[in-house]
């Protein structure tokens, strides 16, 4: 294992540390121009940004699907690189936007078991892991159902379970609230709040970010344009306009009571 470089300053290494990350696609389009930020363990952070800001590109760097042109990504002290790939993919749980892409096995149980089984877990231990993950998202007892018989909200929750089953260091959610009806949206929010895990949430849904994440980052034109308390960023009209971020009609972050 590599020595943990920043353990001198904090007892626990940051869940995620991105330093000087730059990336250009093979066709020459440069998506990221030096991204720097860190997420401490247990934090819930929203990554906001207009379409085409490079959010998805950034997410695909977090578990080594894309290899940075320059800069580094470190997950709980472990640098993302070809040598640690299996461990990195276990530590970084990405929940993709379309649950039908995420759930590819014939039954819910097998899908949730896929990650831990790929990591070598078998038998009773695997079974326990699957049951715990399904219970965390309120889907215990649905193990033997095929994913296409579930509602969209249930599929999204199972998609979260497939990642939780790997006991990740950080949960990365790509547009978690998209296509959810208000009730499923609230259920998912309750689940995310109840989890004891670091969360990075990529979203356009600004009220959802305010509801769930005390801190937000704004990614714009391939750099981190702002980093601060979510309520403060959403309340800064000029900053918001500069980065093509708009609040829904009638929504005023200053009048939203903070959650106890």
């Amino acid at each position, binding site marked *: 294992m590599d020595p943990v470089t920043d353990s001198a300053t904090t007892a626990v290494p940051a869940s995620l540390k991105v330093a000087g990350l730059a990336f250009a696609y093979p066709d020459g389009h440069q998506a990221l121009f030096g991204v720097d930020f860190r997420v401490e363990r247990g934090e819930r952070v929203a990554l906001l940004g207009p379409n085409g800001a490079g959010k998805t590109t950034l997410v*695909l760097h977090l*578990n080594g*699907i894309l290899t940075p042109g320059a800069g580094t990504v470190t997950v709980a002290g472990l640098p993302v690189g070809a040598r640690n790939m*299996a461990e990195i*993919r*276990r530590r*970084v*749980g*990405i929940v*993709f936007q*379309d649950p*039908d*892409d*995420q*759930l*590819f*096995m*014939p*039954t819910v*149980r*097998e899908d949730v*078991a*896929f*990650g831990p*089984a*790929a*990591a070598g877990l*078998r*038998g009773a231990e*695997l079974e326990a892991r699957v049951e715990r993950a399904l219970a965390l998202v309120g889907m215990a007892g649905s193990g033997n159902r*095929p*994913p*296409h*018989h579930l509602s969209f909200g249930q599929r999204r929750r199972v998609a979260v379970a*497939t*990642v939780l089953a*790997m006991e990740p260091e950080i949960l990365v959610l790509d547009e978690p609230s998209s296509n959810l009806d208000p009730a499923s949206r609230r259920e998912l929010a309750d689940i995310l709040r109840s989890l004891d895990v670091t969360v990075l949430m990529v979203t356009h849904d600004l009220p959802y970010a305010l509801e769930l994440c005390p801190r937000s980052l704004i990614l714009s034109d391939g750099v981190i344009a702002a980093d601060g308390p979510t309520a403060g960023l959403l309340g800064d009209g000029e900053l918001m306009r500069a980065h093509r971020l708009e609040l829904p009609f009638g929504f005023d972050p200053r009048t939203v009571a903070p959650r106890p």
Partner: protein
Amino acid sequence: MGAGHAHRLHRPGTSRVHTLPPHTKLAAVLAFVVVVVSTPREAMWAFGLYAVLLAAVAGVARVPPGFLLRRLLIEVPFVAFAVLMPFVAQGPRTEVLGLSLSVSGLWGAWNVLAKGTLGVAASVLLAATTPLRDLLLGLQRLRLPSLLVQIATFMIRYGDLITDEMRRMRIARASRGFEARGVRHWGVLAASAGALFIRSYERGERVHLAMVSRGYTGSLPVIDEVTASRAQWSRALALPVAALAVCLLGWTL
């Protein structure tokens, strides 16, 4: 949605045939078919005995004859081919009901019909007593190349999804007043098929991304270990062993 779409062949149950591990049933059916195919076609009584054996299995599995016979209809195109053989084959001819038929053609037709029907009946019984998912686990256990098992697994998972997408595209076409009438509209249908292909292909890429993110490195991990006891193996292999005895009799008599 396409509920039950993948299970039209399967008939859930708890009989002694249903509860056998899938790979023992697969091996038994394969062995049975090989034995049937290697039986000399002149031993007509042997094929009757094979049919009795299958009927016994269907009885134990409580698969009603009507269910079995209806699913045998899949064989019809091959039957049509077999029926043609006595008319077109060469060689010495014989008179049947005033028609001049080829003797070798008649034997050939009988051969195709008898062996084909027995093979299809055995497969229908297998499908009726084994869920699709278990069949795949059985194939995986029998060391079928992992890539083939994966492809079949994804077909189960995404078949309904693609049918659904196709249905939405048809509704979208119809909503804009499109009705396929004749050759002039084939272009539109071809474009739809192309769009469906591109969408499925892109979905494939996204699914692969999701799999790699959860540690996929080229093979599906074994999640459900299927095992069979010696008793289960001998129960499953009773069918091909009995068939083998009949076959050997057929060769010696």
